């Protein structure tokens, strides 16, 4: 029963999107992922982190946390913010729904996370923040 974990906290600025997904990719390397699995994990993490920056903090000051854990051949990432929160999580997760149509968002972030990870859980409270937990089994 092998286990590893990490925690990363960074300011909500758009250049940290790349930083976070690169760290996520490095963290799962020990599981020997395929190129496609790496790309899927990077994309899903990027979606969650970008959401915290754009929607959680409205591109203003704030802090985003990414926690990763590995248990056997499964990786879990938790991305959380203390931002605006989501009032209707079910609607937010619908494909093509966006709360910011004026910003040229496609409303595909959650749909992509769901497609690329095995499970995606969203907890949120308006005015408190949002926490997205997603996991994926990596088998070579």
């Amino acid at each position, binding site marked *: 029963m092998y286990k590893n974990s990490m925690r990363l906290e960074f300011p909500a600025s*758009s250049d940290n*999107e790349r930083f976070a997904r690169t760290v996520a990719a490095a963290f799962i390397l020990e599981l020997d992922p395929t190129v496609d699995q790496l*790309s*899927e994990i990077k*994309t899903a993490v990027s979606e969650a982190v970008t959401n915290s920056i754009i929607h959680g903090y409205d591109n203003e000051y704030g802090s985003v946390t990414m926690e990763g854990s590995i248990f056997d051949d499964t990786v879990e990432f938790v991305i959380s913010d203390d931002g605006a929160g989501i009032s209707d999580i079910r609607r937010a997760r619908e494909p093509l729904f966006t709360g910011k149509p004026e*910003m*040229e968002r*496609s409303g595909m972030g959650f749909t992509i996370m769901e*497609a690329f990870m095995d499970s995606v859980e969203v907890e949120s409270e308006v005015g408190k923040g949002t926490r997205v937990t997603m996991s994926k089994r990596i088998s070579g």
Partner: protein
Amino acid sequence: MELYLSGKYRALVVRVAGELDHHAAAGIKESVDREMARTGAVNIAFDLGAVTFMDSSGIGMIMGRSKITSALGGRVIVYGASDNIKRIISMSGLNRLVTVAESLEDGLKEAVCNV
């Protein structure tokens, strides 16, 4: 990113390189919109051949540009995308709004001749 005009097709060709996320999309959007206004192009062709990563921010950026070309009676062409990028393009339905092709020539043939 590199931009050039194909005068014959009134198309702005945009060669994107590296990672197309929210951070990068903002800069691309600005340059493309400025060049569209300056050159009078009506079509935009995105060369994604050198894009190593793209997420929904890239989809949104391209969708936004296709609104601009539609208003001008033109079209957006996307070509050279990797399989991973093609996957999110079809998941989002972007392939129904823009012409997805293997090469610039194919894309222009398909899109511009039909406009």
